[in-house]
């Protein structure tokens, strides 16, 4: 595909700050506006940005994991936060909190709500990624060398990969 220098450079400039903002939303979600869903959306928007700049190949090279792994992993984390307390005899989605004194940051708290939010963010990112994976390619997926119609049987013309 044809690349545009302006879009390319802008995307590279915006990318780190957008990701940092997503992280900020995710972490501050516990007591201020934000949270896993919004953070995930902003992080997902960066995927859209990379896609606009460089197409699906760029997205795949920037994000090392496959979309369904992100989605499944996130759902597993979120569902575990809900389920594990029940197995321990506590109410569903029961909260736990871990306070510690970190150098530089001072008093830091990690609660199960944050873990849940991280799971939610991963589900959102995974879903957005999957949408691009499904619709973003210029050629239909079966022509990417995975399933190739046998010569002669073709309802569709064969495409060089």
């Amino acid at each position, binding site marked *: 595909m044809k690349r545009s220098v302006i879009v390319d450079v802008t995307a590279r400039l915006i990318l780190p700050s957008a990701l940092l903002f997503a992280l900020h939303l995710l972490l501050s979600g516990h007591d201020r506006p934000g949270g896993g869903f919004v953070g995930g959306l902003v992080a997902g928007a960066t995927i859209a940005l990379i896609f606009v700049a460089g197409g699906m190949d760029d997205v795949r090279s920037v994000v090392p994991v496959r979309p*369904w792994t992100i989605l*499944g992993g996130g759902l597993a984390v979120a569902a575990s936060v809900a389920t594990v307390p*029940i197995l321990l005899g506590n*109410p569903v*989605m*029961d909260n736990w909190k871990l306070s510690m004194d970190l150098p530089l940051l001072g008093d830091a708290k990690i609660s199960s709500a944050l873990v849940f939010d991280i799971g939610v963010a991963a589900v959102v990112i995974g879903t957005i990624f999957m949408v691009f994976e499904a619709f973003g390619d210029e050629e239909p997926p079966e022509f990417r060398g995975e399933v190739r119609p046998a010569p002669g049987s073709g309802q569709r013309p064969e495409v060089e990969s």
Partner: protein
Amino acid sequence: MTPWIALPAVLPLLAAAASVLVGRSRTAQRIIGLGTLTALLGLAVRLLIETDRNDVMTTQAGGWVAPLGITFVADRLSAIMLLVAIGMFLAVLVYAIGQGDEEARHVGFHPVYLTLVAGVCMAFLTGDLFNLFVAFEVLLVSSYVLLTLGGRLAQVRAGTTYVVISLLASITFLMSLGLLYRATGTVNLADLPAAMEALDPELRRVFLLLFLGVFGIKAAIFPLFFWLPDSYPNAPTAITAVFAGLLTKVGVYAMIRIQTTIGPDDTVVGTVLLVVAALTMVIGVFGAISQQEIKRILSFHAVSQIGYMVFGLGLLTVAGLAAAILYIAQYIVVKTTLFLTGGLVERASGTGHLDRVDGMLRTRPLLGMLFLLPALSLAGVPPLSGFVGKFALVDAGVSSKSWVLVGVSLAVSIMTLLSMNKIWAGAFMGEPTANAEATSPLPTAMVVATGVLVAVSIGIALGAGPIYAYAERAAETLLPLAGSSAP
């Protein structure tokens, strides 16, 4: 506080996540799906026993006390619905694995199916109207995906209708919730009866009708049923079975909940329900008689039969409610079985169209039995489970002196028998046509799953006494609890 009652709502989600992660291996997905549903079945049995001992069990999500927290509640009605639903999900999953079509082709089948299970379980266990909305959304979003798996043109077209109707219902639901919260300050089902008392009786009735309308769309009652016979038959067979057998009944369940919570003594709404019930029965069965394809006939019956359940609810008596609960429980089994058998016929002959298949009884006698028993049961022929349900309903109707409704329901039963006879005569009797020849054996898993469901429905007929007693206790918890707050 009994935390474990929330487990059926979250465990399937965890399993869905695992199912996504092992997406490459269909065998692993199958083990996860079957294992989770078996575990849930065990939980549902435990819930059935324990709710009978304790009446009502609750747990608060995150330990936050209601009305701030989200309450999970299990009573006898939830327990009986949950048990039947999970039993269906398990049987249909076995059937789908045996069939192999969409289940084998799509990596997404198992995760989405498990998410659907989570949504249905959450709907039965929630004690909070807003959470009921969430549960509906979870199950609807999964159903959108399952309905269009395969992506055939007819599926996408039917799916569009279904999505638009469902979204319309969801928006109405959400707006009604907002109004209710503004008016009463709570959406917790346990707090609502007391909070509603402060309201004007007319306003109370408006709320009741709003919610009944919303759930009526999901339950496909007259005149809100038009989307169902169009969208359901186009889904993969196993999915149609779950949708027609179960999803509309989640709507009926919600109608029962809302009616007993905020309008247990509203006889005006009760009468409206009775009229709607009669029309639903009649129009549904007329639709069924005029169809020529097995799945479409059965879909119209799904509408018609909803009328019977609403009939039981509309009587607003313990006997009527108990009959409705018994009817739902047995009907879910019977209807799912019929769709599964319809799928077997299509599998065996390549078509579900009655003009193009004949003489299946000669070539596949077992299939004939698998169809005959639930079909007669649906029509209410003794001693099958449909008879037990209809008998309880008619009995309740007679003691409430609803003669018209009793007459209509009996007439509709006869017409149901007529249209079942149409499938019987069309597909099973006569000389075998070429495509009815028993060329290839049907997959064992499909036949076994259908057979087990037929056995379960016979079991319901045999154990009708204790099951009706249980349903009656369920109805007693529902009505006096809400009735105590009556003005």
